[in-house]
């Protein structure tokens, strides 16, 4: 099979944690296992700068950059071109894959890659409205980047609809590839549950967007209605104080446990303690938390927002409108269900786990991403004037501005090619995956 050289670019990568980061890491690992070459480019995180190798021979470039806001780097338009060009040529990149609309690096890398005539893919991980100023600004930027990518990927159908509207794309040009989990890391453990209680687990950052207000309103009502219910709430954030106040006010110290922030490696330990997982998010492109919970065998109660209804089959989730009464009703019904027929075969944790494992796997995600790559790998490169035509259509003023930016970037590309001809740039030595695997295999044998 054909082996491709792919460069993933995003401002968001380990050591920072989140959905984009894990998507990048796991997807790259699986693509490498499928015989492709993958490098990741991100900005430097503190002392972590330069070139690093992660497990599996995943090469990561941490480029020094000024960070402006929540891990996004300072937009410089053209300043990153020389270093991106060096990396693309050194690594003999064929496809540049940018992630996340908030990432400056992603937009810049795609622009430079297009100036160099490389193939580009963009993945959108979040939802944005059309009403507020930041939304309008990001949407315009997205329109610029997406006018000239070969393919876009979204994590859910809701996200696809959103992206198609925001960037005025052809729907055929956008694929939906969901996130996944490593199901082996989320196995149910029946013995961890406390049979005296029905435990409701909540795991999220405690911020407004995660619907903590709904949680604060629902918890005391559920505790008053059902004497056997207790809550385990993991996560930290500015809204934690509201939860603590609620606990104090209703004297629920023995029934509401606040864990504070939970490390990624401890998520499973918290999840398996519960019977029900409650998610009260107000917006979500693709909710990975409820997939993890379902994989651990928990029944899920969630607000019906964003892409959440697409994520799990109907028998695993009870939906509620983002309204206090609806959340209480849905949670109440689920608590009664758990209380009355805990041993129902259909609701057995192992059954849930098997189903989730069949539905979500990174190998499947990588295979689908690979299909996108193969589709565009041999696409004909349009003439430069066609690129300008696309940018020009972006708006009355913005169109001309975009053309200007693209033209300047192209000219800088020409100058760079004259200063540092690509023949003179030394290609990076290929990582010997086969030998790496053999060595790791030996190590494992020794360990056994």
């Amino acid at each position, binding site marked *: 099979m054909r082996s491709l050289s792919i460069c993933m670019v995003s401002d968001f990568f380990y050591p920072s944690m989140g959905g984009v980061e894990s998507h990048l890491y796991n997807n790259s690992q699986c693509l490498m296992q499928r015989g492709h070459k993958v490098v990741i480019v991100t900005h430097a995180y503190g002392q972590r700068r330069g070139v690093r190798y992660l497990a599996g021979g995943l090469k990561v470039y941490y480029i020094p950059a000024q960070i402006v806001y929540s891990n996004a780097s300072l937009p410089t338009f053209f300043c990153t071109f020389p270093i991106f060009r060096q990396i693309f040529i050194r690594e003999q990149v064929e496809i540049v894959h940018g992630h996340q609309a908030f990432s400056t690096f992603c937009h810049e890398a795609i622009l430079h890659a297009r100036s160099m005539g490389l193939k580009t893919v963009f993945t959108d991980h979040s939802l944005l409205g059309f009403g507020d100023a930041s939304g309008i600004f990001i949407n315009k930027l997205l329109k610029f980047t997406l006018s000239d990518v070969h393919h876009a990927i979204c994590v859910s159908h*809701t996200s696809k609809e959103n992206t198609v*509207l925001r960037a005025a794309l052809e729907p055929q040009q956008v694929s939906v590839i969901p996130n996944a989990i490593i199901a082996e890391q989320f196995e149910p453990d029946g013995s961890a549950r406390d049979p005296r209680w029905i435990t409701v687990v909540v795991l999220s950052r405690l911020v407004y967007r995660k619907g903590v207000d709904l949680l604060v309103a629902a918890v005391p009502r559920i505790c008053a209605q059902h004497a056997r219910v207790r809550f385990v709430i993991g996560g930290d954030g500015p809204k934690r104080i509201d939860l603590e106040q609620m606990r104090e006010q209703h004297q629920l110290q023995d029934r509401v446990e606040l864990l504070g922030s939970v490390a990624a490696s401890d998520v499973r330990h918290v999840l398996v303690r519960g019977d029900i997982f409650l998610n009260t998010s107000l*917006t979500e492109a693709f909710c990975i938390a409820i997939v993890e919970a379902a994989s651990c065998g928990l029944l899920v109660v969630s607000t019906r927002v964003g892409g959440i209804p697409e994520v799990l089959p109907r028998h695993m989730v009870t939906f509620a409108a*983002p309204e206090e009464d609806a959340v209480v009703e849905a949670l109440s019904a689920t608590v009664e269900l758990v209380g009355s027929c805990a041993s129902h075969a259909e609701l057995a944790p192992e059954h849930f786990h098997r189903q989730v494992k069949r539905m979500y796997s990174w190998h499947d995600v990588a295979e689908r991403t690979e299909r996108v790559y193969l589709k565009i790998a041999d696409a004909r490169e349009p003439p430069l004037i066609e690129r300008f035509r696309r940018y020009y259509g972006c708006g009355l003023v913005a169109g001309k501005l975009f053309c200007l930016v693209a033209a300047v970037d192209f000219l800088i590309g020409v100058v760079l090619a004259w200063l540092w001809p690509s023949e003179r740039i030394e290609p990076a030595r290929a990582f010997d995956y086969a030998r790496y695997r053999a060595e790791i295999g030996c190590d494992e044998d020794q360990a056994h």
Partner: protein
Amino acid sequence: MYDYPIVVMQTAVVTQHISSIMVFIAVFINLYQGSLAGHVLLWFSSILTVLGFVFWDILSLYLHAPERRIVRFNLIKGCVLFALLLFGLSPILRTLTEDTSSDTIWAMTVIFFCVNLAFHDYSTGNLTNIRFPGSVSLNAAILASVLLASQLDSNLSVFAFLAFALEWFGLFPISRRYLRRVSAAASMTMAVLLALVAAVMFMYISRVVALLHLSCTLFVTFGCPLWLIWVQRYKNEIHGPWDEARPIVHHYYN
């Protein structure tokens, strides 16, 4: 979506501010031309300020306002200190731009008043402090006043003019905000009053400007709301499942 009479009422904050700037400029021109003496302005503005505070107190008592943040002793102490400081500084301020051409000063003044108009705090009903962008607006106004004051020829005029500027741009907007809180009709009355005062003052300086100001005020009050309602037809709202949901919480327990 928008109700015409309500929007008309709400334009009062804008017209009030435009008119107040016009009144201020008229006061300066009178002072500059010598038709208004410095001590007259000083007396006039001081009496108006005291009357304003008395009115505020009576209104607060009458309305049983819960919060009264004004501590009289501190207020008087601050006033005296400030007045002394300003009085001491006025000779310096008078000669501040002696080497600068008057045309530059007029041009800069116009720019700063535009900034003042653009950043003025129209929306919040903030009575206790001045925050961004209101602070930008206040600073621009004071800067413009200092520039104008430096064109005057006597120390007393400079002192009187700057004291008036501080009262006019620092305190007056707060009392206007208070008035708006009390009633929309009172706010509208204030707008009409200010517009008339500005027009009358400019009648003696330039009829064209006075008429322009009146027609501008009428346009902002009656024309702009119509315009706002009319352009709504071009507003295109897209809603979908991607919008952030608003949590509905009933507070049954509180």
